[in-house]
């Protein structure tokens, strides 16, 4: 394990007992997460990603394998030592899980209270954190008076109260609308940058990974099937599960009889009518097979899959036209 690895999971297996049947949730997982990463773990529901994140802070105890956090094997710790260690691992949830009977600032002092910090110190820390998440004016509100995005900000402030080294996010944006999701993700990115907190994001949404993560692991059927830099995995997915996640469910039904290309918009190009311009300028027609693009602050994000026309020259013309505009182009004819 290199010195800048903060979490190292080896051979982790977890099964559940339900109605006398054993159900395997995770099978022989190996995973390394480096300090300062924003590490995404993506998979469809039931893939085991929520169990995996709960095995990191031992809310679920693995059946076998080790979870080495900051040089210590958590699976070897006593309950008491583990409670201590959890203060270094913050966690936020899909449903926010705030204490509804406590004011916002008292929600944030809660982990400090548990840790035995004095009331005054805890309060001043809470107010500082509220400032960080942009909710200074809500200190005395109750959670029920806040919007979903505000609740998640409070949850983030609460998770950061004990100065954790790692922040676990379990579907943290899945209950939020797209605009609020972007705000919360931007806040996570900022926290990662300014506080150096390693962030692990569990999600089923590719857009979340694209937006903030630098690393991604694809989990499918209780196993990690692909892992690497987001840009690599996104542009050249190797596993079936990853392709399915990135191309969407419907793609397989369409037949790609000829050569197809995937154009990835990663935010480096402006939101222009690329396909229309391409057709007009190259004089070649293409068939759009799949498109999912978004305009974020004037930048294009997402992807388009096009079917290329017959003839090698026409195809080359189109590909080089796209590459000239710094778009990532990749042949995907083999996915049908």
């Amino acid at each position, binding site marked *: 394990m290199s010195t800048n690895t903060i979490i190292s999971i080896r051979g982790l297996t977890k099964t559940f007992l339900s109605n006398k049947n054993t159900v395997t949730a995770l099978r022989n997982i190996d995973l390394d997460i480096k300090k300062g990463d924003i590490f995404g773990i993506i998979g469809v529901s039931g893939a085991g990603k929520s169990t995996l994140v709960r095995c990191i802070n031992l*809310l679920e105890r693995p059946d076998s394998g080790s979870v080495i956090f900051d040089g210590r094997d958590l699976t070897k710790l006593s309950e008491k030592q583990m*409670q201590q260690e959890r203060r270094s691992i913050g966690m936020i949830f899909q449903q926010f899980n705030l204490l509804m009977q406590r004011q916002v600032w008292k929600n944030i002092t809660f982990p400090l209270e*548990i840790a035995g910090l004095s009331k005054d110190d805890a309060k001043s820390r809470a107010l500082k954190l509220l400032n960080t998440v942009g909710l200074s004016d809500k200190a005395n509100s109750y959670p029920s008076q806040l919007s979903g995005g505000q609740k998640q900000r409070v949850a983030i402030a609460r998770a950061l109260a004990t100065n954790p080294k790692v922040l676990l996010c379990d579907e943290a944006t899945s209950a939020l609308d797209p605009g609020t999701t972007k705000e919360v993700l931007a806040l996570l990115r900022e926290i990662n940058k300014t506080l150096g907190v390693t962030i692990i994001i569990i999600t089923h949404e590719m857009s979340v990974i694209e937006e903030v993560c630098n690393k991604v692991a694809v989990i499918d059927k209780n196993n990690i099937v692909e892992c690497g830099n987001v840009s690599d995995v996104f542009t050249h997915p190797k596993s079936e599960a990853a392709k399915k996640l990135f191309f969407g469910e419907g793609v397989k039904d369409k037949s790609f009889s000829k050569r197809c290309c995937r154009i990835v918009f990663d935010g480096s190009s402006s939101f222009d009518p690329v396909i229309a311009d391409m057709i007009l300028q190259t004089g070649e027609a293409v068939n759009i097979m799949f498109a999912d693009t978004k305009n974020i602050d004037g930048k294009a994000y997402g992807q388009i899959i096009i079917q290329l026309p017959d003839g090698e020259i026409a195809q080359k013309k189109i590909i080089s036209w796209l590459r000239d505009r710094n778009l990532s182009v990749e042949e995907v004819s083999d996915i049908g």
Partner: protein
Amino acid sequence: MAEFIENIDMFLKGTGETLYMTLLSTLIAYLIGLPLGILLIITDKNGLKPIKWLNVILNAIVNIFRSIPFLILLVWITPVTRAIVGKSYGTNAAIVPLVIAAAPFVARLIESSIKEVDSGVIEAAKSMGATHWQIVTKVLLSEAKPSLFIGSAIAVTTILSYSAMAGFVGGGGLGDIATRFGYYRYNDTIMTISVILLVIVVQVLQEIGMLIAKKSDKRN
């Protein structure tokens, strides 16, 4: 009305006794029922610390005492009452069966209130490194507070109606007056006044409980 003014001292004393019996019994029943209810929750198989045998025993005790009709229990435990209070009649003697009947009931009320607490919040507290004790005191009891107050309003009115039954065997209070004057001497007026006073006491206690519950709830 004349009869009420004539016997005002008796009615005041009766109301006082009823309140004394009810409130003291409720207090003691909570001293026993609260830890019992918490134990039922945390030793449950989905609880913080599942202990199967303890959970089975506690559930059995609660169920047994919950199924004995109060009037039967009252008579049945007379020897116990005499051993604790020294006599088997009077206001203080009534408190013993009241507590024995009410404590398991209170335990169930506590259990159902705490069960309402969102499991996600408990998980969040665990993720912060909270101990079981901290989860019980700072999460379960504090998040269930409004529901616990509603439960106590239910408990206090139930115990009050039990206390009227205790009057039947010389337990004192408004129930005693209603029995002695209304039942044995056919004095309908005194009986009716007793009933009205009982209704007023129940309403007042219930409203106080509900008001506290509403005031304490920060969810809306």
